[in-house]
């Protein structure tokens, strides 16, 4: 059987007045049913753009997918006609957007907006659509769903609005759910509720989950595998235990050292030196080179490609991982 979703050597650039912004530069990963893959990276590393490319939502111009492939159950999406693509969106692959909290239309009731999914995509009658919407609202644990159906977005808290966005993404029973920073705008106690909800619906529906986040804690608690992104590239891929216990890329190691931990006190933090890259001027060779404590002359010349480390499937894109991290 074909894997559920395969992203292969994806390249996305934006041709702007200032120059070409190379947002995604050869990203590859795959997700299977019941699996959670985290895309971890700092601001501007290309997480959202790569997700928009999978969804077929890159406005062109200025955006161009210059290379690569995205396959859903073996079918190539990037070359698919737009009307077919539209059927994939929502029903096969759905997405919860990063700015979800502002994505709801303020002039329609929350319930109406959810039920629209059923009317528009499933041709359901008003009555059927309403029934399904209320069921979905119950599924995402919105209290008193029958009455809250008529509420407007501004009457909902941030956490409840995020539940509504998740409900809309689940409406057509997708096989893959891409959640872009689903809890970043939420407080920790509400974040914990929403992450639990995602876990529950995944257990129930068995979909593959692509979790986009910059939060190492969320990654550690939620994901099975991680893709660490930097400057539009995957720097390292592995399981949670591999990435957190034995990072094999200098950037991953730097990230781990940067975060303060609740249980590790008064130690001075170890930041990564320098600043994140300017995507108009990505350094030659390895994009992380100017900030890397292990850099060697060859890092400026040849861009490292992902190389397997051991035989568990983990991989790292560093010329010198053996010297830096041992076998």
């Amino acid at each position, binding site marked *: 059987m074909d894997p559920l979703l395969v992203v292969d050597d994806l390249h996305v650039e934006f041709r702007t007045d200032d120059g070409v912004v190379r947002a995604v530069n050869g990203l590859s990963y795959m997700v299977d049913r019941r699996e959670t893959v985290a895309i971890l990276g700092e601001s501007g590393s290309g997480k959202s753009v790569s997700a928009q490319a999978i969804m077929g939502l890159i406005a062109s111009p200025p955006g161009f997918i210059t290379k690569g492939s995205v396959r859903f159950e073996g079918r190539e999406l990037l070359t698919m006609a737009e009307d077919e693509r539209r059927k994939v969106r929502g029903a096969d692959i759905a997405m919860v957007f990063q700015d979800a909290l502002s994505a709801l239309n303020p002039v329609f009731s929350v319930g109406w907006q959810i039920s629209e999914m059923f009317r528009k995509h499933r041709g359901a009658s008003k009555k059927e659509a309403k029934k399904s919407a209320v069921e979905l609202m119950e599924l995402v644990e919105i209290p008193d769903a029958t009455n809250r159906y008529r509420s407007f977005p501004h009457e909902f808290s941030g956490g409840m609005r995020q539940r509504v966005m998740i409900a809309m993404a689940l409406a057509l029973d997708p096989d893959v759910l891409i959640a872009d920073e689903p809890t970043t705008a939420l407080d920790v*106690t509400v974040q914990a509720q929403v992450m639990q909800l995602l876990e529950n619906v995944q257990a129930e529906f068995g979909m593959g989950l692509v979790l986009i986040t910059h939060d*190492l804690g969320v990654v550690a*608690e939620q994901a099975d595998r991680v893709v660490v992104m930097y400057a539009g590239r995957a720097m390292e891929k592995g399981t949670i235990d591999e990435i*957190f*216990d034995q990072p094999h890329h200098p950037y991953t190691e730097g990230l781990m*050292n940067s*975060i*303060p931990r609740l249980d590790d006190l008064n130690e*001075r933090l170890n930041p990564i030196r320098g600043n994140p890259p300017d995507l108009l001027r990505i350094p030659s060779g390895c994009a992380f080179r100017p900030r890397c404590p292990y850099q060697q002359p060859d890092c400026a010349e040849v861009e490292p490609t992902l190389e397997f480390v051991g035989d568990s499937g983990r991989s790292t894109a560093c010329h010198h991982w053996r010297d830096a991290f041992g076998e």
Partner: protein
Amino acid sequence: MSEPILEVANLVKHFPVTKGVLRRTVGQVQAVDGVSFDVARGETVGLVGESGCGKSTTARTVLGLEKATSGSVRFLGRELVGADMSDVRAARRDMQVVFQDPYASLNPRMTVNNIIAEAWHIHPGVVDESKHRTKVQELLEVVGLNPNYVNRYPHQFSGGQRQRIGIARALALEPTLIIADEPVSALDVSVQAQVVNLLEDLQNELGLSYLFIAHDLSVVRHISDRVAVMYLGKIVEFGAGADVYESPAHPYTKALLSAVPVPASRKHVRGERIMLKGDVPSPSNPPGGCRFHTRCWKVADICRTDEPPLEEITPGHQVACHYPETPVEIGV
């Protein structure tokens, strides 16, 4: 710890809720409702709590940017609530602020030189006009920026660099206290650590005190000597970092800490997660009695009627709860 430089007592800040064209007052947002804490010289006090609990309003009222509804703010021995504008302005020299958003808090049309030197025009006599430029360059060096950048504009810097400019501006008047409202929240983790280290270095070199506001509990734990936890306009727990984090006495503190996702592998043993139900109630209509009682799993009758005062349960560890957790001995 040495003597307190800032003493805040029973601070209240209510915002009127108005309705209709006549803007009739129909209620009050009880943003800050009787908050007391102090900051000692050279100390960092962290203020944590979820969105809307009143952290920024506390900061803004202490700074005199909002007029207190009631209560007292004593800074370096002087009462600021109800004081003359000139006294407040004089105090403001010693009390500076760093804001969350390094993009919005710097005027995009001013050069770095003018941004930092602006305070010397407001408070003449601190630095002689002829020395402004060299002093700006010194400050840039202190915060780890290239002193040749004086003529650049904010958009020519990264987020972390802009936050350094904001810190340099706060240092210009050699303050005693810096109130930092979410100073690293907008920064990437790799850069956030640079700014946290900078703040710690500056404290060691200059003996600064910080009131450090953030919603990231790990960052607050890292940087603070003492931590105050706010919920719906009130401080529910206040004490040494070790007390509050390792032996939380208030159920809300316990739940908050347990909700923080742990950035470690699956081998790392995690504590039990306390899942709070529902959302934080509205500060314009807070629950009576203990404000946390609607979400508390230990709620009893008294919690619905009587508001628990903030009281010491062990030396230096205060909690506002009728049924606090028993403190555990903390190894040093």
